[in-house]
């Protein structure tokens, strides 16, 4: 049993916990606790056909546009010619003696199988030697989906009558065809196959062409097809915003921790204790399989989120 500290009310942990739960505000001017700004902005006061559009038809603007077109074509031709000139100075394609086929690539090919355990050299490269690069990519995808969420999210429930009506009007959920029998029967056959194929690509990333990114995209496509056939209500039981957040964050955290551990032990010449297994077996090549699964989950969730956000502005 641990004793509760006397100064618990003023301790840093309590403040941090309150801030995390949105109860207290650590910043002075109430920046964090300010009322959330609604997405709908004030409509612009200008009439739809204001004076502004007339400016576009004036003589000067017309001349400027002609000049602009001429100049941009000239600029593009200049860029193409300069780049072609550069290509002419580069070594010829497909030649084994080109300087980009240097000792880095040779090392990956010659020692990759022994050091990473992956039969697919590209997977061994991007998920072992250059794994932090791939972590950055997953973070770029995650940040991209967060930005789209910020820009397109519609959530006006229980705030304002007018706003709620506006949200309902822009929500195209009411216009989607309900119970399309052809689509439903087709997706009954197709969705399981697509999902299994996506899982196959993710799990065999270290053995054959494929991996987390391509398999995740296939999985996301299967989820989108299911959503189109059966609607948001049935999909909402399976896949909610909370589940999306949990899957993405835990996958990214696991990736970061696992790779930090393996890089730390590798850099200090310690035993990492991760078995590499027999090359070619499905349970081989150490951390590459779990990392591929993490990347696949992040990509599948992101693709599905992009679709739902563009479609109706929410999960």
């Amino acid at each position, binding site marked *: 049993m641990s004793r509760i500290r006397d100064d618990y009310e003023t301790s840093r942990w309590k403040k941090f916990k309150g801030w995390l739960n949105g109860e207290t505000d650590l910043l002075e001017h109430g920046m964090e606790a300010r009322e959330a700004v609604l997405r709908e902005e004030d409509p612009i*006061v*200008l009439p739809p056909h204001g004076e502004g559009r007339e400016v576009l038809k004036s003589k000067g603007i017309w001349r400027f546009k002609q000049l602009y077109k001429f100049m941009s074509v000239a600029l593009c031709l200049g860029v193409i010619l300069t780049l072609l000139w550069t290509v*002419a100075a580069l070594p010829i394609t497909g030649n084994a003696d080109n300087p980009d086929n240097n000792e880095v690539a*040779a090392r990956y090919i010659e020692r990759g199988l022994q050091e990473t355990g992956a039969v697919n050299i590209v997977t061994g490269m991007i998920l072992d030697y250059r794994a932090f690069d791939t972590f950055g*990519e997953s973070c770029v995808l995650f*940040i991209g989906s967060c930005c789209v969420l910020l820009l397109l999210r519609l959530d006006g429930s229980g705030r304002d009558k007018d706003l709620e009506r506006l949200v309902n009007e822009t929500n195209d959920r009411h216009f989607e065809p309900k119970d399309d029998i052809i689509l439903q029967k087709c997706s009954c056959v197709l969705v399981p196959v697509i999902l299994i194929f996506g899982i196959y690509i993710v799990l065999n990333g270290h053995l054959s062409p494929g991996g987390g990114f391509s398999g995740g995209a296939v999985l996301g496509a299967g989820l989108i097809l299911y959503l189109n056939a059966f609607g948001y209500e049935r999909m909402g039981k399976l896949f909610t915003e909370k589940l999306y957040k949990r899957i993405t964050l835990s996958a990214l955290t696991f990736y970061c921790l696992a790779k930090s551990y393996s890089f730390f032990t590798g850099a200090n010449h310690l035993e990492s204790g991760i078995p590499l297994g027999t090359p070619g077996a499905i349970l081989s090549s150490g951390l590459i399989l779990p990392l591929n699964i993490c990347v696949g989950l992040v990509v599948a969730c992101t693709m599905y989120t992009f679709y739902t956000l563009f479609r109706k502005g929410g999960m």
Partner: protein
Amino acid sequence: MNVNVIQHLLLSIEETASIILFGIGFTILLLHRNLVKKIMGMNIMDTATYLFLAVKGYITGRAVPIVVDGVQDVEAYINPVPSGLVLTGIVVSVSTTALMLALTIRLYERYHSLDLDEILILAKEEEEHI
């Protein structure tokens, strides 16, 4: 341009094609006023870059870098490094395309136009009005 340059360009025809594709994308980006078409031009430029990188790693007559039958000779496989770089590029371009499309949707909701000139004029008038 002398004959040597043209011969060289024809020998590495894939790189030449990727450069021309890049130029087409750049032209679309400059000439079209519609924001969605600008995004399409940007995507064509991305694709040209992937083609260039993939071609740079290719070596004539060699196999994909997946070890078959334990052959680990450098002479057997193509360069795996550009393939990894293309993967990075694809992921970043998916994210930027989604972000650009989201911004375009918001602009359309506010100004009811996809024409960049009209949007700029309306935004300026709105600023003066306030």
